[in-house]
């Protein structure tokens, strides 16, 4: 046996080949788009349905309606009550999940593989034929109002909501999917039924089935889906327009006695369809997208201010946020904001991405690509993104070479086009007694109210 050589870390050699599994897609006569992915020997099957209408499609004054509608899908169908429906799901080892994002509504059932037929049937049942009983609408809306009230006590949630509102104003991306108390209170059973009638027609469905025996699953799904009556034109909600520019400032919300400050810092980012997409991924990895990023290395590993700091590029159909999130100890708040803002400015200025950082970030993305697709749910979500963003069918198969081709010039260009230190908006939720005297020194002028 060769003993361990501890003079240097083992090299990596050539990347292991990985081919994203084939996504078989076609359109059924009633307009439903069906994709299947074979996952050999899978003990579970995941069936996911995408509608390209999310919280950005909430009618003004009814913010929260898309999410309320999604939440009500499992409260019973025309043929059985919510309790009976959930019992049926349990009998197939089924978990039903609904997620409403700004651009889409995702409904999925993951179940034991031997119950694939039932999983598909239950998904169709909840999406096509929900009951929307007024009593259920009243109860579920009440629960969401209570959740909103509780979120007012969660410092991170308060910061997220305030930051979105500060950046987007009255834009469709300004509210989080849950909406606000007044808009939810205004939403009734008739609004839910109208939202469903307008946006849930089967020509707009994209259905993805992932499991063992792709061809058999495809036949099972096609047979059941073909029987769904078509209605509506199936066109997605259009990507929202760019919002009005919002000035650089620091918005402060008081949380008396808080032992940490929740910080949000960022500005308008790019859309998923931006040609800079691969360069933006690389840039974000270096800046704040992973543990060894500049911002986490600075705020956590050098200063110990926080348990962790991350930046996200929320890539949407329209221009989503570029946002840093961190919870820092109260006494470090002003310094943490200064440091983070400087990192964002420097990467597009005095300290551009180095050759080593570029190599590391590209490798993290390319060599780390395969592990993103281990589970049926991960594969289904990947296929969903193709449909949500109208991406080419081979997008995942070309990902690695596209990222590997990103060079220093591409990253510098992406930083110049997409990072705007002069437009940063900061939100701080923290203890006013200990913060207000110093926040003016963070470089954003005097703090303002939301």
């Amino acid at each position, binding site marked *: 046996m*060769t003993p361990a050589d501890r003079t240097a870390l083992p090299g*990596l050699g050539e990347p292991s080949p990985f081919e994203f599994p084939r996504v078989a897609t076609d359109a059924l006569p009633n307009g439903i788009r069906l994709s299947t992915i074979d996952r050999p020997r899978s003990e579970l099957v995941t069936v996911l349905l995408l509608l390209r209408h999310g919280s950005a499609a909430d009618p003004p004054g009814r913010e929260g309606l898309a999410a309320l509608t999604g939440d009500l899908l499992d409260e019973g169908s025309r043929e059985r009550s919510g309790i009976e429906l959930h019992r049926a799901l349990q009998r197939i080892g089924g978990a039903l999940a609904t997620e409403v994002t700004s651009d889409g509504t995702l409904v999925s059932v993951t179940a034991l593989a031997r119950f694939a037929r039932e999983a598909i049937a239950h998904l169709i049942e909840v999406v096509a034929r929900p009951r929307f009983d007024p009593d259920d609408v009243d109860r579920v809306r009440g629960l969401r109002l209570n959740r909103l009230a509780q979120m007012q006590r969660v410092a991170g949630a308060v910061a997220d909501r305030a930051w979105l509102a500060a950046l987007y104003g009255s834009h469709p991306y300004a509210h989080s999917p849950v909406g606000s108390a007044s808009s939810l209170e205004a939403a009734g059973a008739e609004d839910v039924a109208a939202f469903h009638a307008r946006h849930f027609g089967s020509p707009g469905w994209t259905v993805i089935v992932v499991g063992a025996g792709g061809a058999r699953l495809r036949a099972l799904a096609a047979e059941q889906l073909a029987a769904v009556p078509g209605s509506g034109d199936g066109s997605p909600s259009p990507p929202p327009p760019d919002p009005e520019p919002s000035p650089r400032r620091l918005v402060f919300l008081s949380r008396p006695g808080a*032992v*940490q400050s929740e910080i949000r810092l960022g500005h308008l980012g790019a859309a998923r369809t931006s040609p800079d997409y691969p360069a933006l991924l690389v840039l974000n990895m270096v800046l704040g997208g992973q543990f060894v990023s500049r911002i986490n*290395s600075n705020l956590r590993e050098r200063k110990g201010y926080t348990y962790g700091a991350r930046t996200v590029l929320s890539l949407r159909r329209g221009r989503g946020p570029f946002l840093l999130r961190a919870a820092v100890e109260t006494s470090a708040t002003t310094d943490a904001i200064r440091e983070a803002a400087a990192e964002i400015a420097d990467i597009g200025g005095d300290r551009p991405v180095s050759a080593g950082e570029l190599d590391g970030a590209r490798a993290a993305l390319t060599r*780390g690509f395969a592990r993103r697709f*281990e589970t049926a749910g991960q594969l289904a979500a990947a296929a969903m993104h193709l449909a949500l963003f109208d991406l080419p069918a081979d997008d995942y198969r070309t990902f690695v070479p596209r990222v590997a081709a990103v060079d220093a010039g591409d990253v510098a260009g992406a930083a110049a086009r997409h990072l705007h230190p002069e437009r940063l908006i900061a939100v701080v939720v923290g203890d006013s007694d200990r913060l207000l005297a110093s926040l003016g020194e963070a470089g954003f002028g005097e703090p303002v109210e939301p």
Partner: protein
Amino acid sequence: MSATLPYTKATLDNGLDVIVHEEHACPVVAVNLWYHVGSKNERPGRTGFAHLFEHLMFEGSEHHDSGYFRPLEEAGGALNGSTNADRTNYWATVPREAVERALWLESDRMGYLLPALSADKLATQRDVVLNERRQNYENRPYGLAMMVLAAAHFPSPHPYHWPTIGMPADLHAVQLDDVREFFAAYYHPGNASLAIAGDIDTDEALALAARYFAEIPAGPPPPPVAVPTASSGASASLPLSLCLEDRVELARVYLTWRTTALFEAGDAELDVLADLLAGGLSSRLHRALVRDRRLATDVSAWQDSREIAGLFAISATVAPTARAADVEAVVEDALARLAFEGPSGDELARVLRSAESAAAALLQRVGGFGGRSDQLNRYNVYAGTPGYLAGDLARYRRVDGNGVRAAAARLAAERRVALSIVPLGSTGAALPGAVPADVS
């Protein structure tokens, strides 16, 4: 058909267990290492140490004295670690070509951590941990609940008395010598279990494990954990009803019982009982509290079974128009009914089917928390063999209505700890008779 987890196990001369599981579906390998040490191995006045130590394990070792994350993130890996009362685990999920690097790094911090340790690293990571405590416990609504409940159920010096995250004063008091002693006592091959799972041949994995870990000297058997007998502990002061004011909008009540340890007789029945009570929208308590009478906005139940003992909990957030006592009455009624009549056959079958599916969902991944490599180590450390999956699943298949009824009956009869977490200044929202909890 049910989940299987084939493996090969070898034990190196220094005592390290090596477990290999082949799964070639994706070109990814998981490296997962458990040290059989957690906060139960600490002592009063020195709490939070096992977890702080976990942080230091990412700060570099003798032959790679810089951050542990960079060489693995740059190789396309994902990695993390966690500490609980019983064990500390470390995992990295890497592309196939990086498995040797992952083993090099993991073995270097097992064999050669101390030469790279410094007071600066300790001070910074202590601050990071204090921030973790602020973020996940102190500044989070209801974040102190489980600390209060564990302290009440397991009076000092029971090793489950203190929280794994530790007491701030203790964290401030940590010295470098404490770190060195702790490392020598617990971080050695005989107190560890290594699992390698994924796109790798068994022979190659065993050879790589031997190349990097065999040179590390065997360590001393860890000192035994002193566990007070149950009768000398909490039960004398129970039942107990506590109240804690917090920055919350709605009151939440917790009803909790000290129960059986992991894999002991009765543990599976309590898992099933938790699902019958509050697993999903058709569960008994969700229907009664949230759907029908609208007394609560949510309800959960769980059996947290650990190595020495378990804790069964039911928690419900009280609706604005309801009273905590009404919620408590519904919970007691549901327990009494289950203790009297047991679950229906269909109800039990549905819950067991859900459990089968949840187990399969965890095993979809080779790595990460709860993935195949983590489960192999969990079985190896707690059940004595990595091959306990079949036995584990069989425990649930053996659960019948009588067993669930008996489990419910025991809870209904036993003395418990209740906790009401209420909005600041609203102690009247607590369960009647609750006394202030001591949070130090």
